[in-house]
């Protein structure tokens, strides 16, 4: 089953990054208006993404039933929050356009193993939620700070490149 998951993950990754239709997802998330101008069917892509999500949820339900054997109507309660947390830990941005499925898989692995790791470390099960919360906040804040730093650095580089051009052209003897 693990091999199956890895295969699916690789397949999805290749689909999203290499094929034309797969790249639509990133484009629509990044800049919907720009995508429309390019001729990409934005609404259809959004619709398809929701459908894929629902299909994955039903696949998850099949796996759930096969592993657990008995189900109640409230079986999946709270899973949506954990799924969102897993995606964010994996680097997917909630404002769209950034992230890939490998990150999401790792995020899901982390979320799922927190309670197991706590047992190993000897923590009382009581602290399960607290540690999940702290972990989530730390990772996300860290990621945001790093992104800020990168954006600032990129801006500074662009500014430096522009001023260099001006200085160079001056030195080359032109009159500005």
């Amino acid at each position: 089953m693990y091999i199956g998951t890895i295969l699916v993950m690789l397949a999805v990754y290749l689909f999203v990054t290499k094929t034309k239709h797969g790249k639509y997802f990133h484009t629509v998330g990044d800049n919907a208006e720009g995508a429309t101008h390019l001729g990409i069917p934005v609404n259809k892509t959004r619709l398809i993404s929701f459908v894929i999500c629902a299909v994955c949820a039903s696949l998850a339900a099949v796996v759930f039933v096969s592993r657990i054997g008995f189900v109640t109507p409230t079986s999946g309660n709270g899973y949506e929050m954990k799924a969102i947390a897993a995606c964010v830990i994996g680097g997917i941005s909630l404002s769209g356009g950034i992230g890939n499925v490998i990150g999401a898989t790792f995020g899901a692995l982390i979320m799922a193993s927190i309670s197991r790791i706590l047992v190993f470390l000897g923590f009382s099960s009581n602290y399960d939620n607290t540690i999940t919360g702290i972990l989530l906040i730390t990772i996300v804040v860290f990621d945001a700070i790093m992104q800020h730093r990168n954006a600032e650095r990129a801006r500074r580089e662009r500014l430096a490149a522009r001023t260099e051009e001006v200085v160079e052209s001056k030195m080359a003897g032109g009159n500005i």
Partner: protein
Amino acid sequence: MKKKALALALLGAMVLTTFTGCGSTTKTASNDGGGKGDTTVTFIPKVTGNAFFESANKGAQKYAEKWGFKVKYEGDATASASSQVSVINKAVQQGTNAICLSSVDAAGVKDALKAAAAAGVTVTTWDSDVDPSVRKIMVSQGTPEQLGQMLVQMSCDSLKDRGKDPAKDKIKYCWHYSNATVTDQNSWQVEGEKYIKANYPNWENVAPTNYYSNQDAEQAISVGESVLSAHPDIDVIICNDSTALPGQAQAAQNKGLTAKDVTITGFASPNSMKQYCKDGILTRWGLWDCGVQGAMGCYMAYYIASGHDVKVGDKVDIPNIGTVEIMPNSVLDPKADVSDPTSGVVLIPERTVFTKDNMNNYDF
């Protein structure tokens, strides 16, 4: 602006028809509460959608048909005190004659039950009790001591089955159940611990803070697996929660362990564990007939609501089940207030230990 108004008016009409549709169809479908001279007992579980409470409801409905009164099953899908209070309030306002309740939080529902009693509604409890002053009868599956000891006893019998001597060998054990706030499971764990410390000082609890899986089936399996991995030499895992036990058994099966390697026992409904017993993952587990317990609770509520007075010491004959005696509240809690003679406890006669031999006789 006009178009907005038109669009919204149309939608409002659509929405309204949905509601009236909802209301009328379910009205005819559900058990409409009495008023025709029929006594209605509202049967309120801790949470709906749980196998234990659903089978209790089935039992109650089956017996109530024979006994001639209506049982209305009302509950919330979340096990929270505030939603249980609103379910109680609604039942009272709908004019029910009696309430039979398994409480999520004894203190939280106290005032709602007081208001119910003031409105003339008879209150009885089952499975999870409330303050004795706000209910008439509690149909109990056993005192915490009985249940705690039963868990330890089952563990001992299973240990003996696979050749270990519970009185002499060094036994490692732990508890795996729902969470630290559930009243009844924690009271059994406390009593079980006391019993172990008193009689089996050679047993070592490797996790004094216990393992919790919050009645989540998936978590029960993952916590179960991590327990087995973190303590490879563990001897006994006691799961006194009907979600934790199947999960722990599944975890053992995933790891390829059987009853010969580790002893798993606890409380769960027979149907959820039959397959594991057949596969040899565990040898025995226990429960009680929750269908009968639910039915008894409803019968006592109906009995008192129909005008019979009961007091401590009385013997009540429940048709098709047997004769029960009203015991004083001190049977469950030695510090309980015994001054009100109309408030008492009914103990269900027996708890059952399910093994491979008798498990097919039960279907719930």
